[in-house]
């Protein structure tokens, strides 16, 4: 019997394991999921922890319990992948051969790659909410914060859920208003990008929203050093932003085993992958899902979900010796929490930037506009995650190809998403 080994039991690994188990007969393939621990964290919930809006204990469930019967769970760290031998070497010295390998080990936070970030002041004045420990520590730091300069900073792209630091800024504004000390808090958002977000239309909307909420925006700031003791971020080009409390999104990379596996990953440890078929460029029998993939799509759970539908089909086709379906369109869908019980929704793919309109059709949720409906959608997503997304089921009316029915299309949106020209220089 053939064996499919899936590295990583997070969002992508779990949902592809479950989809494959349903799609392939029990005698068609053995499926093994490998992960170093048995704690599956609901990452979208981390954003709410620092503000006391979510109980951190409720965010974690056992990984193996999210897998269908007939899927083996192997608890072990990965030492390296041997592409020549079609085998994964585990940290306990044993190896696991595969016919098909799926890499779903996501992205890793690397605070130590930024000078000073993990040094003095780390977890004291400098925090991240991108880990469960960090989010919990930040919750108590925020509750003690009575005023001063709060900086939300992104070290460099790519990061998981690129809207999360913006959401954190919006929620911080709400949080300090609730505590009636907003006038004593200076909020600043620091980004290496040239605007609030990567895509032009959404970037304009979100910059406007930061402005409405009194959050200063510092752009094209590549953080070279974090001086936790003096309380300042220093950019590579010598600019400084002072802080009393810094909330940083550290640099991201792939998992360390990727660097120990010759021919598998790129400079940052992500896996070069065909953006349409999700087959790795390293070997035909190696596929990639979720944040581990080096494709021009957001590192977000919705992407892994939309990839799942295509990837399960492609692995099945590969096993049957059929050509792969180049069907993944880069579909991404994100709720952006804006505070005060409201949220925005953005929906985009490789070729179409986020625009206004409604999703998934003309009567759907409003896009790029604050609404209570979207906030309800964001909250409902927690349930959908455990009960629909991870089991690998379809969300009704939301399939892998990006819908266009309810969308307003700006004249110049399209390939590459260059900003619409509002004015020509004379």
């Amino acid at each position: 019997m053939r064996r499919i080994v899936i590295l990583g039991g997070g969002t992508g690994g779990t949902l592809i394991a479950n989809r494959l188990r349903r799609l392939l007969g029990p005698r068609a393939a053995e499926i093994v999921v490998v992960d170093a621990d048995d704690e599956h964290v609901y990452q979208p919930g981390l954003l709410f922890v620092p503000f006391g809006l979510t109980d951190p204990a409720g965010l974690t469930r056992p990984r193996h319990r999210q897998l269908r019967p007939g899927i083996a769970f192997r608890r072990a760290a990965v030492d390296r992948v041997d592409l020549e031998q079609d085998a994964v070497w585990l940290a306990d010295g044993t190896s696991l051969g595969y016919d098909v390998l799926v890499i779903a080990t996501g992205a890793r936070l690397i605070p130590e790659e930024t000078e000073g970030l993990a040094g003095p002041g780390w977890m004291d004045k400098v925090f991240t909410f991108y880990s469960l420990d960090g989010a919990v520590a930040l919750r108590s730091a925020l509750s003690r914060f009575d005023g001063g300069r709060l900086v939300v900073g992104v070290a460099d792209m790519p990061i998981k859920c690129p809207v999360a630091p913006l959401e954190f800024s919006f929620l911080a504004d709400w949080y300090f208003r609730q505590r009636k000390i907003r006038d004593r808090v200076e909020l600043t958002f620091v980004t290496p990008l040239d605007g609030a977000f990567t895509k032009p239309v959404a970037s304009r909307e979100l910059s406007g929203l930061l402005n409405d909420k009194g959050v200063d925006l510092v752009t094209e700031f590549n953080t070279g050093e974090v001086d936790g003791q003096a309380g300042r971020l220093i950019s590579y080009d010598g600019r400084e932003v002072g802080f009393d409390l810094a909330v940083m999104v550290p640099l991201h990379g792939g998992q360390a085993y990727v660097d120990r596996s010759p021919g598998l990953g790129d400079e940052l440890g992500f896996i070069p992958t065909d953006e349409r078929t999700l087959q790795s460029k390293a070997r035909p029998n190696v596929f990639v899902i979720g944040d581990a993939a080096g494709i021009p799509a957001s590192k977000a759970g919705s992407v892994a979900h939309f990839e799942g539908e295509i990837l399960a089909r492609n692995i099945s086709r590969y096993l049957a010796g059929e050509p792969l379906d180049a069907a993944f369109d880069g579909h991404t869908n994100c709720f952006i929490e804006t505070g005060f019980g409201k949220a925005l929704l953005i929906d985009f793919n490789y070729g179409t930037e986020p625009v206004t309109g409604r999703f998934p059709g003309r009567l759907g949720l409003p896009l790029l506009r604050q609404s209570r409906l979207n906030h309800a959608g964001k909250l409902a997503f927690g349930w959908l995650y455990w009960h629909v997304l991870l089991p690998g089921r379809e969300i009704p009316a939301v399939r892998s190809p990006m819908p266009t029915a309810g969308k307003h299309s700006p004249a110049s949106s399209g390939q590459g998403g260059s900003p619409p020209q509002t004015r020509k220089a004379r």
Partner: protein
Amino acid sequence: MPTTTYTGTEVTVNDEGFFTDPSQWREDMAPQIAHGEGIELTDRHWQVIKFMRHEYEAKGTGPTVRVLGKTSGVTVKELYQLFPKGPAKTAAKIAGIPKPRGCI
């Protein structure tokens, strides 16, 4: 599409001055493009420019500052000394390759 002239040859560029057709670029254009950015090219600049061309030909897009720092043999700190207004963008412009795709 706007055009501009370097060392007597007309080339097509985008609104921000990035080459849209990297095959129109020649090495002898680089000093003039660099001059427009306030940079006088040294051997260290050339190391980065040649690396940018090589990466573009291999991957179809210019590397980010972080990748440059890891792979070009020039640290991020020095990259900023060489190209103070942003190494990835400025070096791409001088190397005659399109503006690096932003990450998403």
